[in-house]
């Protein structure tokens, strides 16, 4: 009896979590005529690739895709590199100001980014940095930095310091010890931490809309997606196809790396 209840609950959770995404994909494959029919069919009986064709053929799709990827990957790599150094200092060293730094990182997470739009716009304008993907990269870098530091610190803390000390004993310098011992153990953690940054940067709309003005070719995918969902007056089939294409890269990265992320969180929370 308990088994049945349990499995029913699990099934409910499963359906609720999967259905919206399923419905997106199903709609993307359904011909427009069927989408507009009064009784939706739960399965695309006559699957079509038309909507994907519409989406991919929309002006600049591939350029936007490339822009998004460039900005996202650059921002994430930059955040990882900077966070790695900081996380190491926090996890392994004692120094005056350490707690202040940790506090700053945490407080940085509360930053209301939507409100910083105007000042960031003004700063970028005065520095002649509007209409550049690199400006977006920098913004996304800082947006993702706090969380990256917190998570990476957990991963580093999870690696026993004794390993490093042993390497130091063997005559390695500190940097060498780090490179040969810590870094290899940290690699999975680095990859999984990058996920959060990836999602955040991949999604961002407001800054991309405000900081890329004249250079149409420098727009990113979220802008493109919004033209579909908001203005084309919602051609639902094409919109869902666009959303599917938008989601695909994230999903792929996620499926590969998900498990390690959670273990990193544990390390971060439990070990401090």
């Amino acid at each position, binding site marked *: 009896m308990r088994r049945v209840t*349990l*499995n029913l*609950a*699990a099934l409910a*959770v*499963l359906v609720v*979590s999967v259905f*919206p*995404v399923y419905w*997106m994909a199903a*709609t993307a494959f359904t011909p427009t005529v069927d*989408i507009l029919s*009064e009784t939706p069919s739960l399965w695309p009986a006559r699957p079509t690739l038309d909507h994907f064709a519409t989406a991919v053929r929309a002006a600049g799709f591939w350029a936007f895709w490339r822009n998004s990827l460039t900005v996202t990957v650059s921002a994430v790599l930059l955040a990882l590199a900077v966070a790695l*150094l*900081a996380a*190491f200092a926090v996890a392994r*060293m*004692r*120094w005056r100001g*350490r*707690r202040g730094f940790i*506090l700053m990182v945490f*407080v*940085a*997470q*509360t*930053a*209301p*980014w*939507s*409100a*910083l*739009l*105007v*000042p960031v716009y*003004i*700063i970028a304008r005065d520095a002649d940095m509007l209409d550049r993907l690199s400006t977006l990269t920098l913004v996304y*870098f*800082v947006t993702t*930095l706090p969380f990256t530091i917190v998570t990476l610190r957990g991963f580093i803390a999870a690696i026993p*310091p004794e390993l*490093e000390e042993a390497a*130091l004993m063997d005559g390695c310098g500190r940097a060498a010890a780090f490179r040969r011992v810590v870094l290899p153990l940290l690699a999975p953690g680095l990859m999984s931490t990058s996920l959060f940054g990836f999602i955040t940067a991949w999604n961002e709309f*407001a800054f991309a809309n405000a900081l890329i003005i004249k250079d149409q070719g420098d727009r990113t995918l979220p802008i493109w*997606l*919004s033209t579909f*969902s908001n203005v084309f007056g919602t051609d*639902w089939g094409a*919109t*869902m196809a666009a*959303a599917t294409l938008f*989601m695909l890269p994230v*999903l792929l990265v996620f499926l590969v790396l*998900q498990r390690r992320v*959670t273990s990193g*969180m544990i390390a*971060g*929370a*439990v070990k*401090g």
Partner: protein
Amino acid sequence: MVSTESRPAGARERLAAPPRAAGPRPRRTAARRAAGALWPYLLVAPAVAGFACLLVYPFARSLVISVQHFRLGELIRGGAEFVGLANYAEVLGGPEFWSVVRRTFVWTAVNVALIMLIGTGVALMLPHLGRRMRLAVMSGMVLTWATPVLAATTIFQWLFQSRLGVVNWLLVRLGLGSFEDYTWFADGTATFAILVALVVWQSVPFAALTLYAGLTTIPAELYEAARIDGASARQVFARVTFPILRPLFGLITSLEIIWVFTCFAQIWAISRGGPDDATTTLPVHAFLIAQSLHKYDLGSAVSTLTVLILLAVLVVHLRRMFRHEGEQA
């Protein structure tokens, strides 16, 4: 931003204590030690520089704007005038701000409570499932988690469409005829509910999977021992699971509070804070004032207040974290 002046009185001894753990070896010379002492600062320098240039500096600019008369003309021509705290007075004096604050608290409380409850429930359920079912549920969670916010908002708008949306169709099929062409996004409460559903749907996986991973680190013997003592499932949770995972619960809760409180993209994409301001939370309010009405000064004032309120909400957690950091090596 708000830096170290909030440091509690007990900042004290630990900071002064000699470094341990991976700290410098005792046999090092004084010179090397001095050089070594510089290292941590060099390592955090890029992060600090990043925060300073792209977070603290824009925030400072925002603060400056909030004490100026700064509208569309000033944005374009420059030359804003200093007006002191007039903008804050205007914001705090109006009834609108306080109703938005109240709504933001309700929004945060409802979402975080639901996320933590469902997240904990799913996490506790997972270990008791069969292998296949567990894998299926976890995959479903990952799928949800991986859905980008923009895609998710688009999906939810489609699900709840009044004319062709599958939700209305389903409800009518279930015998709720009043949902024929029901206009979800026309009603404040309904829109609010949809947004809660969306945010909870997107946030539960992080909480559930992280808690589940935490559960798996608890040694089985502890459960055995509790059960031998005759503890019920609820008692096991209260006496074993929760105490061990308390730091994890604390971290997840505070992260969720931050994320839900500052949540903007979902609300903006779906309702723009409408209908009738029913879904206008503080970040949306600030954005509306600044971007739709071009009152950048008032928008900045609202943002400053938003940060202060959020920090006040989190102060308990921040203090605890701060103390915790001091005790740890």
